[in-house]
């Protein structure tokens, strides 16, 4: 394949691989901007994926799957909120707990309900959010360069892909153009200021946490019903943590988050493509190098070498009215 075609194919993979990261990243954005640290994106995404796969199999409908995913993920988000907000517990511990609960439950319930070794039944077209062909894509296929890009890269994705990119805009819009977003950002920086302005810190944070749950549900749905044809155990494989890394990388802003997720997705796609292929100078780069790269980059970022990553000022600290 010539270079151009290869590039487009890689970019196409990049888009597909970055979507779960992007949705989880945007999910985390709401929570963390409101001052509730969430290490549990991984668990919520996994639970959402399972719920999506299970419901889609049982009801034969991808939309049922999506609904189930959002509900389950939202429920776990509420548990995290309950521990962190109402009981002012350690937010990291709570997130870690949810990851384990989700990891174990999805496998146990999967095996018990479907007896396929922890996966949900393979889904047909009805149960999936399959590829959507944009208007004129077929017609444009043969147009040199632009047409090919339109056909291969832009058209032909699952509807959830377009949704995810749309959500970047929506997230930005909610955070910076609505009253709710203003208050959410305020409560992550100075909850006392919000409290004295007469706004309930608790209710605001719960709503943020619910947004996180919903978006994680979408992320899980994408994994199970778009990228795959059902739930497979441990299918998140650390994506929730990469999303967290991307969030920090993007300094908790929506548009940079999109680019960070695309970057990490690109690395993933590159790793798959380059597997076994020798590179000039360096020779064969082990695929593990690419796999580790997002994590290494995050550490370098946190060490302050790529600018300062300043989290929301009140992040991770339970709000207690000062005496």
């Amino acid at each position, binding site marked *: 394949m010539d270079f151009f075609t290869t590039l487009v194919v890689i970019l196409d993979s990049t888009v597909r691989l970055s979507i779960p990261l992007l949705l989880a990243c945007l999910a985390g954005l709401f929570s963390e901007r409101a001052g509730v640290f969430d290490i549990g994106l991984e668990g919520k995404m996994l639970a959402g994926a399972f719920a999506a796969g299970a419901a889609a199999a049982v009801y034969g409908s991808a939309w049922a799957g999506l609904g189930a995913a959002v509900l389950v993920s939202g429920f776990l988000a509420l548990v995290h909120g309950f521990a962190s907000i109402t009981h002012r517990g350690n937010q990291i511990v709570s997130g870690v707990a949810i990851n384990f609960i989700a990891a174990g439950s999805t496998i146990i319930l999967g095996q018990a309900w479907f007896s396929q070794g922890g996966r949900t039944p393979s889904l047909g077209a009805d149960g999936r959010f399959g590829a959507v062909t944009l208007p004129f894509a077929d017609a444009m296929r043969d147009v040199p360069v632009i047409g090919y890009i339109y056909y291969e890269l832009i058209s032909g994705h699952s509807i959830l892909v377009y949704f995810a990119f749309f959500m970047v805009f929506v997230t930005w819009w909610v955070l910076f153009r609505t009253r709710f977003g*203003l208050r959410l950002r305020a409560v992550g920086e100075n909850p006392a*200021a919000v409290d004295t302005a007469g706004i309930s810190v608790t209710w605001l944070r719960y709503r943020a946490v619910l947004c996180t749950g919903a978006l994680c549900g979408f992320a899980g749905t994408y994994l199970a019903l778009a990228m795959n044809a059902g739930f497979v155990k441990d299918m998140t494989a650390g994506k929730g943590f990469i999303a967290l890394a991307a969030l920090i990388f993007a300094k908790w802003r929506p548009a940079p988050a999109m680019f960070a997720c695309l970057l990490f997705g690109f690395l993933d796609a590159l790793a798959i493509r380059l597997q076994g292929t020798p590179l000039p100078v360096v020779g064969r780069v082990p695929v593990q190098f690419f796999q580790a790269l997002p994590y290494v980059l995050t550490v370098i970022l946190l060490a302050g070498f790529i600018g300062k990553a300043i989290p929301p000022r009140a992040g991770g600290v339970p709000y207690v009215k000062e005496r």
Partner: protein
Amino acid sequence: MSEAAIELVGINKSFGAVHANRDINLEIPRGTIHGIIGENGAGKSTLMSILYGFYQADTGDIHVNGKSTAINTPNDAIAAGIGMVHQHFMLVQNFTVLENVILGAEGEALLNKSIAKARAELIRLEKEYGLEVNPNAIIEELPVGLQQRVEILKALYRGADILILDEPTGVLTPAEADHLFRILGQLKAEGKTVVLITHKLREIMAITDNVSVMRQGQMVATRKTSETTVEELAELMVGRRVLLRVQKEEGKPSDFKLSVKNLTVKDQRGVTMVDNVSFDVRAGEIVGIAGVAGNGQSELLETIAGIRKAEAGTVLLDGRPIDVTGAADPGELRDRGLAHVPEDRHYVGLVLPFEEYENSILGYHDHAQYLKGPFLDIDAIRADARDKIEKYDIRPTNERLKTANFSGGNQQKIVLAREMEKDPGVLIVGQPTRGVDVGAIEFIHKRLIAMRDGGKAVLLVSVELDEIRSLSDRILVMFDGRIVGERDSEASEGELGLLMAGVEAQEAAE
């Protein structure tokens, strides 16, 4: 003035065992500037927090403009037309001025529609009250004086008729303070009612119509400002309490043990907390630093003790410098004979979850007498702790008990025993008897005198004027980060009260 803007009847509020507000009755006439004065811990902030709905009173009623009003949340207060400008600003640092002002009063769910209107309204308010500030400026880039304007604008934007300002001039320069007073005058002219909480008498005399004095949770007096004097207010503020005078002989001070020269300390906001302070403490004397809390004494103590960094200046201990602008090491200072009883015994001077004997060596845990190689010599430590318990009458006499279970007075004795028994050359002490019962107070005072008689240099910081007058050989008064006066122990309460409240002395100190 007809109806009272605010009337408080029988307000009581306790936090556990602390009775912060006792049976408060207060009437604030409409369209006046009303001052509320008192020392720290007098209960002013608690009372205002109740008025603002941040806390709920245990008993009592609130009447706003003649109507009985229940204020259970800040929203209720705002709805009743009460606005508060907090001492520690309630601002979101990385938001713009406009965003901070509209927070909570955005108008609509979608900001686009309301923000233009809000901006116009904000600019109008700014012009009307002389509170100019750029609506698009980011708060953390504004100087503190301008940030305060935003706090005031917030209240006005929400339609406050009654404005409460809590210690507003603490962070302002004199010029900014004057500007603020002009603004308050303007507000009064427009019919607003202003409540000014402060400990600074000069401000009270300058702009208030009436003044109420609080002391130890109670409202002790209300006066028309024009009919009272600073002296009277100072006396009311500081109070005629039972003087705990300790028997002591004349001091015999000798060598200079501690010398502070041109010390300047800034806090993390960049506000100067200690302003070019110089003084000496000699062996065999107690130097007391009097002043209302928040005038730089804490920062001064922390800097000398090596746990806070100074901006400029030198501190000499036994003639040799402490690296206060660089990396001072409290451990090294202890070795050189500087002992420190910190103001915060709960989180600095003690580790509450530790057992008593573990706290009895905090800071001295690297001394050979407590160690057997890398190991703690538990038997030696416990024996030492028991000795101290006996000597200092610490109760219960159980060195295995968790420190959190000791009373405040006994906790303080644990700290004192630890610091005093090491025979330091210099002892610096902050608030030694805060929250301590009377019996222990006497004991602690006797011990401090004993240190002084034993030839030690003692630097004492306390907000309790009685204590300062009772123990000190020389008294320095701190106000606004500076030493504003030096007196001997014969100085009167009134005189010291004036200095503490920032009023310049009639005669020069030296």
